[in-house]
């Protein structure tokens, strides 16, 4: 078992960067340099261990690795805390940062500062971290390390000589970077004599061991086996084992103030050991105040999830029940749709989170799902009362409320100046409100917009990329709720409203949305025995209409003695195809029509 380390020889830090600026590669080099992983075990992106994360090339679960490094004759313990890299998980990022004293702010020498560089920098600075500015990929042919260093120095208000230069790929400069982390990042300073307070900055669910909490001990000491209290939920549990990740889990006798490690809590549901919660000892030696900053995970985006085959409802419920054990941010409640039957209205941190959940449901639980178009959460205000609506079909009709408010985000966009026009046009067209703009360099501008969240959860990111030839970068943070002229647009098939197609959109875009939906559906709904009217309506007012003309011919021209068997099979196939359709009123709608009509461009909100 490892011994408690002298606080002066501990450094807790993280690496923050824009996507593809080399964070994972730098972590790999650090693991190698400190011999944390035997050579034969080493593989690319070592720390991104979950299957799903590796495939998507992103990290959704923070992990902490303990690295041993000798600098100027002294052995140090470096705890590298990995942070999630997506705006959906900003809160988790903030908790990971709270576990550190310093952050390496990494910038690609060929790209310079990007939107998430800024976002991360602000988060790290607000968390009071010492920033170690670092330019990566200095060996790339198109690199301009001087310019990237200049931008970085200007951003953090430091001298350009303080910016380190590395190649995470070749390892050049990485030893010097570790030395700089030791020299610049202060050691932790929490008292080991105080009652225990340990921050949970991440947690994961292990089917065999239960919930594993990743903790930073701020004060006091966490023994390996102890009865501890999870302060937010007020639950006392027998912790089974404390340890450090080196990078494999290694038990320790205790984790003392300033140290980072894991705790096998023994609880079976991540909701009981949530990110941001404080662990103290149970009983008399407990702390009375939790660490600041705990927040319940709050869904921002909602979508109905329905089994493609109605009979799978029970399976879907079981799958969600299992999934929530490992995903504290997932919300769900039963929902009944006239069109899609029994399912669940699910709340997610964002679109990426929604995609991950849907993919896990389909892959890990072998379910085929229809997801309705995602929507944000609306506040309907009547008198002084606020009703929270997260299902468009529950949006009240106009005239029954005073106003509706929708969530707005503060978006940071960095773009080369030649694309400034198109980018700003895009933001205007998405009901954006320009906050400010400044030039990072003569060539690149940083702009801030207030944008309705609803406007960026569809194809905004795609549009931004295409209008800037891929050069613009985006980050955003939640800003607040703002009144907006929103209306519910319903879609009717043969006069019957289809709840799954209802959507809440801005009044000025209602016609366009309705038009688009009826046109899409006209292509997707097969001809029936009668004309099928497809209408979009706001209240009782029809704003768009298409017709699927009645099918006139569906007959086998010939059926003689030698044809009977084959034709019978053809008809049986046709019957099966019909059976897979959903019946809306009198209209048969293929599953595929729901999936296609509700499809959101999956690149809408991209990873970062």
């Amino acid at each position, binding site marked *: 078992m490892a011994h408690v380390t002298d606080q002066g020889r501990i450094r807790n830090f993280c690496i923050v960067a824009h996507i593809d600026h080399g964070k994972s590669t730098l972590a790999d080099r650090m693991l190698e340099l400190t011999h944390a992983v035997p050579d034969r075990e080493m593989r690319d992106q070592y720390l991104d261990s979950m299957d799903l994360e590796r495939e998507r090339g992103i990290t959704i679960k923070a992990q902490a690795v303990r690295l041993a490094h000798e600098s100027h004759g002294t052995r140090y313990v470096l705890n590298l805390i990995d942070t999630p890299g997506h705006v959906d998980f900003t809160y988790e990022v903030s908790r990971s940062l709270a576990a550190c004293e310093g952050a390496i702010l990494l910038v690609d020498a060929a790209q310079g500062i990007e939107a998430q560089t800024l976002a991360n920098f602000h988060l790290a600075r607000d968390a009071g971290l010492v920033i170690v500015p670092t330019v990566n990929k200095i060996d790339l042919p198109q690199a301009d390390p001087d310019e990237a260093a200049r931008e970085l120095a200007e951003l953090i208000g430091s001298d350009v000589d303080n910016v380190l230069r590395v190649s995470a790929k070749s390892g050049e400069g990485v030893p010097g970077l570790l030395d700089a982390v030791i020299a610049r990042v202060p050691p932790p300073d929490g008292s080991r004599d105080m009652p225990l307070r340990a921050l949970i900055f991440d947690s994961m669910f292990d089917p065999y061991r239960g919930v594993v909490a990743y903790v930073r001990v701020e004060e006091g000491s966490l023994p390996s086996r102890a009865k501890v209290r999870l302060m937010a939920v007020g639950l006392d549990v027998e912790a089974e084992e404390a340890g450090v990740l080196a990078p494999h889990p290694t038990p320790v006798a205790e984790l003392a103030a300033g140290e980072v490690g894991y705790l096998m809590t023994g609880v079976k549901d991540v909701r009981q050991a949530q990110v941001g919660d404080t662990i103290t000892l149970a009983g008399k030696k407990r702390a009375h105040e939790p660490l600041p900053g705990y927040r319940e995970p709050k869904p921002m985006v909602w979508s109905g999830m329905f089994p493609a085959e109605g009979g799978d409802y029970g399976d879907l419920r079981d799958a969600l029940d299992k999934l929530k054990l490992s995903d504290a941010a997932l919300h769900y409640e039963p929902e009944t749709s006239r069109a899609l039957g029994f399912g669940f209205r699910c709340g997610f941190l964002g679109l990426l989170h929604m995609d991950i959940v849907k993919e896990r449901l389909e892959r890990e639980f072998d379910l085929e799902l229809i997801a309705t178009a995602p929507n944000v959460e609306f506040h309907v205000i009547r008198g002084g009362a606020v009703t929270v609506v997260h299902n468009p079909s529950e949006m009240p009709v106009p005239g029954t409320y005073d106003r509706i408010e929708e969530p707005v985000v503060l978006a940071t966009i960095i773009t080369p100046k030649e694309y400034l026009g198109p980018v700003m046009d895009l933001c205007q067209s998405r009901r954006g409100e320009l906050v400010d703009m400044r030039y990072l360099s003569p060539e690149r501008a940083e702009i801030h917009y207030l944008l309705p969240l609803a406007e960026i959860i569809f194809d905004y990111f795609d549009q931004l990329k295409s209008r800037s030839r891929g050069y613009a970068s985006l980050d955003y943070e939640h800003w607040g709720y703002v009144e907006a002229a929103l209306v519910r647009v319903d879609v009717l098939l043969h006069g019957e409203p289809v709840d799954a197609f209802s959507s809440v959109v801005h009044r000025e875009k209602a016609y366009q949305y309705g038009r688009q939906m009826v046109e899409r559906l006209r292509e997707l709904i097969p001809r029936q025995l009668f004309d099928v009217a497809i209408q979009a309506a706001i209240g009782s007012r029809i704003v768009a209409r298409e017709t699927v003309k009645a099918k006139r011919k569906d*007959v086998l021209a010939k059926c003689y003695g030698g044809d009977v068997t084959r034709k019978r099979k053809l008809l049986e196939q046709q019957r099966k195809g019909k059976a897979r359709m959903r019946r809306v009123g009198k209209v048969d709608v293929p599953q595929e029509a729901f999936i296609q009509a509700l499809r959101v461009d999956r690149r809408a909100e991209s990873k970062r």
Partner: protein
Amino acid sequence: MTAGMYVHVPFCLTRCGYCDFNAYAGLGHLAGRYVDALRHEAELWAPSWTGERFVSIFVGGGTPTTLDASALSGLLDAIRSRFEVAPDAEVTVEANPDTVDEAKHTALLASGVTRLSMGAQSFDPTVLVSLERVHSPESVRRAYSAARAAGFSNVNLDLIYGANGETLESWRRTLEETISLGPEHISAYALTIEPTAPLGRKVAAGLAPPPDPDLQADMFELACELLGAAGYAHYEVSNWARAGFECLHNLGYWQRRPYLGLGAGAHSFRGERRWWNVRPPDRYLAEVEAGRLPVGGEERLTPDQERFEQVFLRLRTFRGVPTTRDAAELVEAGLLVRSNGHLVPTERGMLVLNELVLALTA
């Protein structure tokens, strides 16, 4: 019990692009052996079909008239000697206009053929080219006159509508010309894209357009209108006849009477069993010449399948199916009519018969 007999002749002068039948061009040299094999096969089946009275024989293909009249005549004699064939049985032979002349017609009549079914397909030369038919409208007229001159009093003309390039007007001319010839029976088929036929592969590859179902619907309606006005009764989806000239043999299929199929790939049906002969002519010959029944496969119908067949086959004809369930909505929609305790499709209903079948068997 009454039964029908089907005899398959798999030889053609050329293959047409739309056709996925068990037919071959260039196998004419096998004709002699094949006719012998048919006679032999008839002998093999005869013991198990005693007690069945055959009221129809249908020699189809392929192109049966690629065979000599004497070969066909010998074949029919052999069948009559092995099976109980009604003296007034309907005996149909399919003919291609280019393979018949008056002498052949006379010989066919002499051998007991009572009905001639001729593949006219269209009277529009461009449509015939589009269908890859090698005959001309003129040869149809010539063959038809020859049949009449020889004394055939029951002639069918087969038509196909909806080929690439055919317009409603062209189809109207084909119908009018057909009516003016005055056959007793007319079969008019919507061109169907069979995935395994050369045309089907072309369509799948995007090299040919699929037929427009709405245009084919218009063509169907035009056929109903013109043929009806000319006194032809529309007694099955694709078949019209003057009173008393419905094809007895084909009615047997739709009424699920037993049938025995002879020849390569021919299907047979009796009781709850349906079976089919091996398809390739060489395998068929090998089996029969070795003294074995050339059966290549079979199915036994479950009661559900049997009920389903009852509906989807009977509903094709104007006799319809016995009313066993509520079909008010379809009747109201003008797709079915009630008649003598039966549900009968209207002409509009026939066009969407698959939907009706599925609705009535749901």
